[in-house]
C-alpha cells in the first residue's frame, strides 16, 4: 500500500460500515422475507423420542385439513437412499452412518424429522403437522460417551458395529516433530525434581444460537433451481446439493441473502434444505420452510461436547516437558459437514504458545443419540485453548508460582519466530511479551493481586480471582495441501473478481459469504487502496452463486486472511492490465508509468490518466494496443501458504461470593494481536462478540439432556444466552505484529475472542476460591456449581438436584421473576 501522506490509505481506517444503512432501517432481505407467488410451506414432523423404531405413521387427519397439499415421508420423496454429506473423513477407516433427510425406520435423536407436511400457509402446515400421528417403539438411548464405547453398549447405528466414529492420534515422537510424551511423563514420574499433573475437563455441549432462525426458499420455476437459504456456505451447498441429489451443479443457483449470524451453526447441508429441494422438484412450486427457535435449538447442530483428560509433566523449576491429551468427543447421532474434524482441529493447538518438547494427542469420536455436533465459533481451538490454559494455572498452583510467570517461562520468545511447533506448524510471527505487558498494565495486574491478597487476609465474603488466558490459534482456513493431508474433502482457497465499470465504479466479487462480519466495508477499503478509487465507489457483491460463481465461503476466520488477499491479487492484475492500455493512450512506455492514488503518471512529466479514465477508454475500445483484450476485469484464486496465528493476552477479574457462589465479572481486559487491522472498528466489534460467546460458555450456557435423551432447555427461556445485563463493558486493545504470510499482514479475528475468553473466566473463578481448596468448577460456572465446589472442598455434604444449570441469575436476564421490567405483562 502507498504510505505517502496523500492520499490517505483506506486500510487501517475505522470506517463505519456500509452495510448498516439497510440493517438499521429495516430494508433487509432475510430469507424469511421472501415468498414468491405460489409458494407452499413445509413443516417438519419431528420425533419427540431420542431413539426408537418408527412402527407407523398416520397422516390421514393431517391430510384432511384445508390447505394441506400432502404429507410425505422419506419414501414418498424418494429420499430413503439420500445421505447428507460429511466432507471430513478424518481417518480412512472412519465409520459414517447414512444421514437421511428424514428418518427411515429408526429415529436417532429427539428432534429428527420423520415426515413433512406441505400446505398453502406456514400456519396450516404447522397445524397439520400436529395431527400426524407417529407410533414409536422406544429403544435404549445412548447418552454417555464413555459408556457408549464399552463392550455391549447399545449401538446408535447397529450396522456400523460400534459407537466409535473414529480414533485419531498424533504423537510428536512418531512424527519426528518432538519427543515422546509418554517417555517425558514417565521420566517425570520417577524424577523427584519433576511433577506430573493430571486433570479432567468437560467441554459442555453448546448451541450456536445465531439470532436469525434458518429459513429456506427453493424455487423450481425457471431454468435453474434457486435455493435461497440462511447459510454461511452457499458455494459448498451448491456443490453438495448436486452430489447429494444428483442435480447437475450448473442447474443449481444458491443465494445467501442477508444472513443473521452463523457462528458455525450455518455451515451445513441441512435436512431442511434438501427436503425443500426435493419437495420443490416434486410439486413444481416454490417451497418455503422457516424454523421456529425451538426447532433450531433442538435440531440444528450443536457444538463442543468433549471430555478432556490431560497429563502435563514439568520440571519443578516450571519448565514444561511433556503433554498428553486424550479426548472423547460427542458426534451426536450423525455426521454433519465437518463434525468428525472439529476436535481434530484442536490437536494442533493444545501446545498453544508454549515450547512443549513432547506431545501426544488422541481423540475418540463417539456416536450418541443426541443432536449432531459440528462447527461452533472456534471449532476445536476453544476446547484446546481451554485445556492448556487451565493446565498452566494448575501447574503454577502446584509450584506455588504466579501463573503469568510460569507462562512467560514457557512461551515462544518474540525473537524465536518463525517457530516450528511440536505439531509441525510454523508460527510466522507473534509477540507474546508485548501483548501481555500491555494487557497487564491496562488491567493493573499488580494492583489487583494486592487486592486479592488483602481480601484473602481479611476473609472477605466476596473473594477476588484473576483469570489469565494467553492464547494463540490457527485460522485463515486454509492451505489446500494441508487440508488434503488431513483428508478434508475440499481445498482452502478463496476467489475474488474486480470489475471496472464504464462509469468508473468498481464491483468487487468475493467468494467469501459474509453474514454480519462487515465484508462489504472492509473489502471496499482494500479495493479503494489497491485501485486508488474512492471507498464509496466500490460495491461488494457476494452470496449468490450466479454473481459470485466461485468461492469456499466464510468460516474459520478465513474471509480476510484468504479472501481479502485474493482481492489484493485481483486488483494487482487490474492495475497491470490498465497499465498497458494507459501506456498506449499516453504514448509512453509501461516502464515509464508510475501508479499512485489511482493515477498512471508518466515519470518526469505532468502527463497522466486516472484509472477510471482508462476504464472508460477500455469500455469504448476505440483505441487499445494490439494483442490484448479490451477489458480491465480480473479474477484471482488465492491459496494461502500457511494458517494465520493471531494471539493475545486476556485477563479477567472475577468476584465470587463464597456464601452463595454468585460470580461477578468485574473487569475484562484483552490485548489481541491480529496482525494489521484493515478496519480497527470492525476488529474490535469481532472481539467483543467473541468474548461474549466465550464468557457465555464459562458462565451461562449448556445444552442439557434428560435421561431419556430429550433436550430439556431447547428454548430461549432456558438456554440462557447472556443479555446486556449479564455482561460488563470490555477493555480491548491491540498490538500489531503483521503476519509475514500475506501481503496485508493480516490474521483472522472472527473466533479469537471466543477462543481466548472461556479459560480466562474459569481460571479467574477458580483463582478466587482456590485458597478454599477448589481446583475445578465445571462449566458453566453457575452460582450453584461454584457453591457446590466450595462446599465439597470444605468437606461439607450437599444435596443432589437433578438439573443444576438453571439457578436464578445464570444468565436469565430477560425473565428474572424478581425484575419483570421490560417484559410485556
Amino acid at each position, binding site marked *: 500500500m502507498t504510505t505517502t501522506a496523500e492520499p490517505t490509505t483506506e486500510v487501517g481506517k475505522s470506517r463505519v460500515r456500509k452495510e448498516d444503512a439497510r440493517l438499521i432501517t429495516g430494508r433487509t432481505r432475510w430469507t424469511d422475507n421472501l415468498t414468491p407467488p405460489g409458494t407452499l410451506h413445509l413443516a417438519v414432523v419431528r420425533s419427540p423420542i431420542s431413539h426408537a423404531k418408527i412402527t407407523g405413521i398416520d397422516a390421514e387427519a393431517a391430510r384432511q385439513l384445508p390447505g394441506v397439499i400432502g404429507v410425505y415421508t422419506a419414501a414418498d420423496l424418494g429420499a430413503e437412499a439420500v445421505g447428507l454429506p460429511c466432507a471430513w473423513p478424518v481417518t480412512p477407516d472412519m465409520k459414517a452412518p447414512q444421514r437421511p433427510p428424514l428418518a427411515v425406520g429408526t429415529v436417532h435423536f429427539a428432534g429428527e424429522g420423520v415426515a413433512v407436511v406441505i400446505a398453502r400457509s406456514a400456519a396450516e402446515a404447522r397445524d397439520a403437522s400436529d395431527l400426524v400421528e407417529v407410533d414409536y417403539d422406544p429403544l435404549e438411548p445412548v447418552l454417555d460417551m464413555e459408556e457408549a464405547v464399552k463392550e455391549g453398549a447399545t449401538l446408535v447405528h447397529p450396522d456400523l458395529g460400534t459407537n466409535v466414529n473414529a480414533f485419531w492420534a498424533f504423537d510428536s515422537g512418531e512424527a519426528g516433530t518432538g519427543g515422546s510424551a509418554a517417555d517425558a511423563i514417565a521420566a517425570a514420574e520417577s524424577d523427584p525434581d519433576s511433577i506430573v499433573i493430571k486433570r479432567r475437563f468437560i467441554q459442555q455441549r453448546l448451541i450456536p444460537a445465531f439470532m436469525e432462525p434458518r429459513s429456506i426458499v427453493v424455487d423450481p420455476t425457471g431454468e435453474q433451481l434457486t435455493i435461497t437459504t440462511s447459510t454461511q456456505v452457499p458455494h459448498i451447498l451448491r456443490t453438495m446439493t448436486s452430489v447429494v441429489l444428483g442435480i447437475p451443479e450448473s442447474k443449481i443457483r444458491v443465494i445467501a441473502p442477508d444472513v443473521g*449470524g452463523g457462528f458455525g451453526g450455518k455451515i451445513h447441508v441441512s435436512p431442511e434444505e434438501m427436503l425443500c429441494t426435493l419437495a420443490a422438484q416434486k410439486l413444481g412450486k416454490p417451497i418455503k420452510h422457516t424454523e421456529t427457535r425451538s426447532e433450531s435449538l433442538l435440531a440444528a447442530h450443536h457444538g463442543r461436547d468433549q471430555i478432556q483428560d490431560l497429563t502435563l509433566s514439568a520440571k519443578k523449576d516450571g519448565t514444561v516437558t511433556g503433554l498428553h491429551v486424550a479426548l472423547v468427543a460427542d458426534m451426536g447421532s450423525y455426521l454433519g459437514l465437518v463434525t468428525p474434524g472439529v476436535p481434530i482441529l484442536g490437536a494442533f493447538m493444545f501446545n498453544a504458545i508454549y515450547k512443549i518438547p513432547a506431545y501426544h494427542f488422541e481423540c475418540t469420536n463417539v456416536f450418541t443419540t443426541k443432536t449432531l455436533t459440528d462447527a461452533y465459533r472456534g471449532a476445536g481451538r476453544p476446547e484446546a485453548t481451554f485445556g492448556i490454559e487451565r493446565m498452566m494455572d494448575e501447574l503454577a498452583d502446584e509450584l506455588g508460582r504466579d501463573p503469568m510467570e510460569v507462562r512467560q517461562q514457557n512461551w515462544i520468545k518474540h525473537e524465536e519466530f518463525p517457530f516450528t511447533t511440536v505439531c509441525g506448524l510454523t508460527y510466522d510471527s507473534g509477540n507474546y511479551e508485548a501483548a501481555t505487558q500491555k494487557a497487564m498494565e491496562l488491567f493493573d495486574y499488580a494492583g489487583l493481586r494486592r487486592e486479592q491478597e488483602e481480601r484473602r487476609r481479611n476473609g472477605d465474603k466476596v473473594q477476588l480471582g484473576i483469570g489469565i488466558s494467553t492464547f494463540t490459534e490457527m485460522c485463515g482456513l486454509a492451505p489446500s495441501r494441508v487440508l488434503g493431508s488431513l483428508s478434508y474433502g475440499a481445498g482452502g482457497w478463496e476467489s475474488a473478481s474486480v470489475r471496472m465499470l464504464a462509469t468508473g465504479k468498481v464491483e468487487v466479487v468475493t467468494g467469501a459469504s459474509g453474514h454480519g462480519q462487515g465484508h462489504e466495508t472492509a473489502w471496499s477499503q482494500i479495493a479503494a487502496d489497491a485501485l486508488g478509487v474512492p471507498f464509496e465507489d466500490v460495491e461488494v457483491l457476494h452470496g449468490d452463486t450466479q454473481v459470485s460463481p466461485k468461492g469456499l465461503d466464510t468460516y474459520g476466520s478465513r474471509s480476510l486472511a484468504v479472501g481479502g488477499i485474493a482481492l489484493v491479487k485481483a486488483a494487482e492484475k487490474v492495475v497491470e492490465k490498465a497499465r498497458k492500455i494507459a501506456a498506449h493512450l499516453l504514448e509512453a512506455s509501461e516502464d515509464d508509468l508510475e501508479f499512485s492514488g489511482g493515477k498512471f503518471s508518466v515519470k518526469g512529466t505532468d502527463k497522466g490518466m486516472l484509472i477510471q479514465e482508462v476504464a472508460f477508454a477500455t469500455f469504448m475500445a476505440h483505441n487499445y494496443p494490439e494483442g490484448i483484450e479490451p477489458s480491465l476485469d480480473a479474477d484471482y484464486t488465492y491459496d494461502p501458504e500457511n494458517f494465520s496465528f493471531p494471539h493475545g493476552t486476556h485477563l479477567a477479574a472475577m468476584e465470587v461470593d463464597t456464601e452463595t457462589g454468585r460470580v461477578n465479572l468485574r473487569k475484562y481486559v484483552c490485548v489481541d494481536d491480529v496482525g494489521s487491522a484493515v478496519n480497527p472498528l470492525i476488529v474490535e466489534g469481532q472481539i467483543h462478540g467473541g468474548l461474549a*460467546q466465550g464468557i457465555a460458555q464459562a458462565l451461562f450456557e449448556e445444552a442439557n439432556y434428560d435421561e431419556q435423551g430429550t433436550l430439556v432447555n431447547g428454548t430461549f427461556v432456558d438456554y440462557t444466552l447472556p443479555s*446486556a445485563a449479564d455482561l460488563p463493558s470490555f477493555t480491548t486493545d491491540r498490538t500489531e505484529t503483521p503476519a509475514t504470510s500475506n501481503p496485508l499482514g493480516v490474521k483472522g479475528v472472527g473466533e479469537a475472542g471466543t477462543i481466548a475468553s472461556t479459560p480466562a473466566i474459569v481460571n479467574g473463578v477458580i483463582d478466587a476460591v482456590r485458597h478454599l481448596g477448589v481446583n475445578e468448577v465445571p462449566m458453566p460456572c453457575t452460582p450453584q456449581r461454584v457453591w457446590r465446589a466450595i462446599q465439597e472442598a470444605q468437606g461439607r455434604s450437599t444435596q443432589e438436584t437433578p438439573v443444576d444449570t438453571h439457578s436464578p441469575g445464570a444468565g436469565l*436476564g*430477560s425473565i428474572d421473576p424478581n425484575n419483570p421490567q421490560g417484559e410485556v405483562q
Partner: protein
Amino acid sequence: MAQVRVTVDGVNYADDVEPRMLLVYYLRERLGKTGTVVGCDTSNCGACTVHLNGQSVKSCSVLAVQADGAEVTTIEGIARDGKLHPVQQAFHEEHALQCGFCTPGMIMQAIDLLGDNPDPDEREVREGIEGNLCRCTGYHNIVKAVRSAAQKMKPGAVSTPEQTPAPVAGGGS
C-alpha cells in the same frame, strides 16, 4: 375472522385477520413490514419489538386484534424525511450491529428506554435492553450507542413526539 383497524408507520389499515394471528405476522405477512423480524417463539429475544401507542412491545406477544385502534411504529417508520432517528444514527456510528437481525428490535427498545429515562447510566441501559438478545456484539457497542444517542437527543431535541400514553396490549383482554 376478526377485523382490525390499525395505523402502522403513519398509514391506516383495515383488515380481516384470524383471531390468533400475532401482530408480528400481521406486520410481516399482511403489511409487508419485513423490517420487523421473528427471532424466537418464547418472547425472549425481542427482535420483533415495535411501539404500540408509543410504548415498546414484543410484537410476537401481541395479537393483531389487540392492536385494533392503535398506532404502531416499526423500525421502518422512525426515520423522518430521509433523516435517520438519532438512535439509528448512533447504532451506525458506534458500530452497534453486526448481522443486524436483532437491530430493529434493539433500536425500538432503546428509543423506548430513552423515552422513560433520557440520560441512563451504563447499568440502566443494560437493564433497559435486557429483554433484547444480541449474539454478535457482546452488547458493548450497543450500550455505547444508546448512551451516545441520549446525549444527542438531550436538550429537547427529541424527534419522536411522545404519543398519548395508552394501555399497552400484550396481556389481559
